[in-house]
């Protein structure tokens, strides 16, 4: 081999450094562009060509989406350089140097810490403002006044599951031994909750919070830790480092249910709005439910968008950037400091390539900040726009964000028309460019002082009459492709895909995993959508699917079982969750459902199914390579 006579450190000039860095960046950016482009194109084209509504703030959204791509590239690279090597080093050293009790303690701490850092949980809370306290007091409580109980119960659920996962690697028992009892208990609890007035409404939340917990920080870290431990565990011959993630998304479901049961007795039962205000609720209950402030906001606030002038926009953007940065630091910094200190002070190990690890942590923070910013300004906006207008395929909806103001409006131009019942209705003609459109006239929209008439354009139903079947069908197809293409961009799945490809030495390709998971998420989203449209209780969806999965498990190989169940926990991350929730809320508002939860739970159950089936197909071809020939078998 090439042998240098003495050690040489190569000096690289600025120009050479650039020639190294540029292709590297181009490659990373291109990878992320390929991942994100489908969901963006899909949303944009759907809005433009099917809903036929122009995209608002297109410039800002484009900026946001470029931020998502740039952020993802940085974040994933940082993950591979920084957090994952740290996790794996810890996993390798823990069993060698510490006893089982210390490992348990460490696992709990890490699980809780990683979950509290996870940004996606905050999204659950955002949905809380949409719930009325009288419709579902328990749900309202957990999402608003008692949200810290919710967070903590989720975090402890994850912590306990990390412990179970690590013990599994150390003692080498199969995933099924924990999975089957857990699922049986979960299904039992869900069925019990279905018959309880108050608990009924949190089952969606419980299942969804299970799906949300496992995000881009927790997953790679926990998987890396598992890889480390399973390498040194002697009893684990066929080492498989997976299975923790699925536990981490099942245990929180249980812990949320438990917390719900605890508070269920202390809170009032669901009641109608009048009863809630008139007859009232006990003082203690009210204090618990509504907090000390004891303030109930008016039921419906119609928010009309104000014209935002540039300085205000700038200020808002600055606030958002700051917030995104803060979120990123809070997610990554405490966790990595904890890991580094643990490795250095307790295990007394040096970090190999420390500068690379620090660079990686820096990259993850930068990446996550840019990514968060991009999510707020790019994907969320686009998703909200499409999600809110989606019902226009089967209903006529008001386009609040394109409210028009007609100055110098003269009430004399208002005409009268007769409706089907023979009543008189007022309307006027508006000339826009060269066409005349008739617009219904409402007294309250006319501001006499300013002589300005405000009107909200009405859109749809696009496919035929109100509540037509084709419109619903379009919504379902939309849901499928939304789930599918959003999953392709999910960072935690990409990280898991890399690890799976690495540990299976390329026999289970990343692209294969991502594709089969994406199809599963698509199907799950479709079913979740159906749940909202037809108001099917979540239990009816969850129970049969999980029972089917348990049956399928017995036919699969443990390698695929572990990967399949893990990919389910991973699917619902920072890209899928807001988009799916935006869509669910958009439809839910039109249909008047109490809680829009449950789509995520469906969206994370189906990938297990699709990966298991994909595993069976792959397994079949592998068996062929072992057998002499097919014919001989026959």
């Amino acid at each position, binding site marked *: *081999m*090439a*042998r*240098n*006579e*003495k*050690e*040489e*450190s*190569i000096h*690289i000039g600025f120009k050479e*450094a650039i020639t*190294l*860095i540029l*292709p*590297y960046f181009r490659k990373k950016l291109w990878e992320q562009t390929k991942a994100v482009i489908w969901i963006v194109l899909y949303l944009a084209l759907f809005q433009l060509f099917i809903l036929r509504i122009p995209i608002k703030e297109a410039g800002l959204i484009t900026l946001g989406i470029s931020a998502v791509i740039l952020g993802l590239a940085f974040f994933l*690279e940082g993950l591979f*350089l920084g957090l994952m090597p740290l996790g794996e*080093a810890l996993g*390798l050293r823990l069993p*060698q140097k510490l006893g089982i009790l210390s490992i348990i303690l460490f696992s709990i701490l890490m699980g809780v810490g990683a979950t509290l850092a996870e940004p996606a949980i905050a999204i659950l809370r955002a949905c809380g403002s949409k719930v009325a306290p009288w419709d579902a007091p328990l749900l309202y409580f957990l999402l608003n006044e008692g949200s810290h109980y919710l967070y903590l119960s989720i975090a402890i659920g994850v912590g306990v599951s990390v412990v179970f996962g690590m013990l599994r690697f150390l003692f080498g028992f199969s995933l099924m031994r924990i999975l089957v009892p857990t699922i049986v208990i979960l299904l039992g609890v869900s069925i019990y909750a279905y018959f309880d007035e108050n608990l009924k409404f949190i089952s969606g939340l419980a299942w969804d919070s299970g799906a949300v917990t496992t995000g881009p920080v927790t997953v790679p870290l926990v998987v890396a830790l598992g890889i*480390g431990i399973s*390498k*040194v*565990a*002697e009893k684990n*011959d*066929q*080492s498989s480092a997976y299975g923790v993630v699925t536990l981490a998304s099942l245990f929180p479901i249980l812990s949320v249910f438990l917390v719900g049961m605890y508070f269920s007795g202390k809170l009032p039962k669901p009641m109608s709005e009048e009863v809630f205000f008139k007859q009232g609720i006990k003082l203690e209950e009210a204090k618990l439910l509504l907090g000390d402030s004891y303030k109930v906001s008016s039921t419906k606030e119609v928010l009309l968008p104000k014209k935002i002038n540039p300085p205000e926009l700038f200020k808002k953007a600055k606030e958002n950037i700051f917030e995104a940065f803060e979120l990123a630091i809070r997610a990554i910094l405490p966790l990595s400091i904890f890991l580094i200190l643990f490795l250095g002070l307790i295990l007394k190990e040096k970090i*190999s*390539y420390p*500068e*690379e690890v620090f*660079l990686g942590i820096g990259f993850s923070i930068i990446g996550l900040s840019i990514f968060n910013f991009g999510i707020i300004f790019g994907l969320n906006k686009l998703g909200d726009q499409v999600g809110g207008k989606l019902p226009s395929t089967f209903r006529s909806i008001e386009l609040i964000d394109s409210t028009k103001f007609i100055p110098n409006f003269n009430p004399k131009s208002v005409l009268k028309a007769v409706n089907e019942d023979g009543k008189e209705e007022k309307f006027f003609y508006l000339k826009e460019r060269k066409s005349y459109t008739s617009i219904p006239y409402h007294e309250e929209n006319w501001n006499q002082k300013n002589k300005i008439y405000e009107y909200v354009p009405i859109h749809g139903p696009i496919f035929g009459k109100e509540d037509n079947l084709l419109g619903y069908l379009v919504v379902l197809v939309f849901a499928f492709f939304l789930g599918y293409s959003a999953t392709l961009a999910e960072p935690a799945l990409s990280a898991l895909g890399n690890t799976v490809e*690495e*540990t*299976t*030495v*390329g*026999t289970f390709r990343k692209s294969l995993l991502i594709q089969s998971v994406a199809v599963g998420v698509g199907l799950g989203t479709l079913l979740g959508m159906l749940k909202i449209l037809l108001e099917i209780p979540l239990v009816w969806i969850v129970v049969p699917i999980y029972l089917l999965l348990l049956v399928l498990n017995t036919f699969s190989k443990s390698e695929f079982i572990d990967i399949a169940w893990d990919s389910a926990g991973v699917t619902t991350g920072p890209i899928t969750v807001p988009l799916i929730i935006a869509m669910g809320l958009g439809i839910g508002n039109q249909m008047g459902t109490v809680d829009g939860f449950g789509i995520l739970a469906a969206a994370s159950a189906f990938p297990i199914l699709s990966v298991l089936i994909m595993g069976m197909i792959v397994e079949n*071809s*592998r*068996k*062929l*390579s*072992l*057998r*002499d*020939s*097919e*014919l001989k078998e026959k």
Partner: protein
Amino acid sequence: MHFRQKAIRITAIVHRDLTDLVVSALKRNNIHYFHMEPGRYPVLAKRGWLLFDFYQNHSIIDTPVTIFEVSCEAAAENILLSLFRDAAELNIPGHGSVYSEAIEFHSPVPTDYIVTTEKKTKTIGFSGLTGIFCILPRGSAEPIARLILQNGVAVPTISYGTGTGLRDQLGLLRITIPKEKEILKLVVHSSDAEHAMDFIIEVGRLDLPGRGFIFEFPIGHGLLNTKVSLEGPKQAASMDQIISALDQLYGNMEWRKKSNQFRQSARHRNYFEGVNVVINCKEESIESTLANLRKVGVSSSTISLNKLVHSQNEKKAFTPAREAANILIPKKNLTEVISLLEETGFFGEETEGIAYTMEIPRAFSYQSKLGKKK
């Protein structure tokens, strides 16, 4: 003190579904230490249906395999070879391969690490084989493997590794160069070796800088996998079966010579020779060892992960998670490298190191004009 001991290394590549059978067979026969590494062997997929057949490019199906490595003294070679053959029924195409190489230990090893025996058995397997070891950037093994399979050269095995070398001297800029490598191993008839190597160099563009390197290593005896494709047989026996039957009939693989099928490369290649130093130690400690070795000019190496399994329940056993590095150096530098390893405490308890070497008659990599003059 320089420790030396000649030995044989048995490498068995077994379909993953048969791994448990092999592990229990090894444990039953009191083989206390063996290394395991995951890998894959590609097989040509079935032809597509109807119109898809126009697209003649076969797709590849990756089959997971486990690569076993056991060291033994010369007398135990045949016993181990037949142990693997019987445990995994290697005479059936698709089950895997097993072969042996001569190695030399330069470090003390734990008791029982080298399998010894007093039983006498007759030789099994074919002789006259040569192994080819090739390191490529991630993703480039696939197209090469396809061509190898389509030309019926051999059934390659692919495993993952990481490379060190130029990138470690770059400082933080090293992150811009991917370190992930693929290791492609195949065993061919000795008379085909040069042409097969030439073929891979050509297809893999190994004559360009930074593409990897390739070397051949002598093999004692071997039984080779013949499953090339998943295509069902159109005759009473599949082609794979016919090949393996002919192998057994002739008692060798001479008849499989296909040198004349290879296109003779007109280019003159600058091959070099040396020894391959394999160092094996606790995971996460190989990086510092390699950094020390850079002081005596060893710059490039390929690291792969392998698990050391031992069936004894001894407390002072080696850690299972281990890393191995292949380092190719000129023969004259061997003593220098070994004594440096000794000085830096590589063989101590801290890293639990093992080092052995094998002769490499022919190796190739991109060499700069300057390097050639040296």
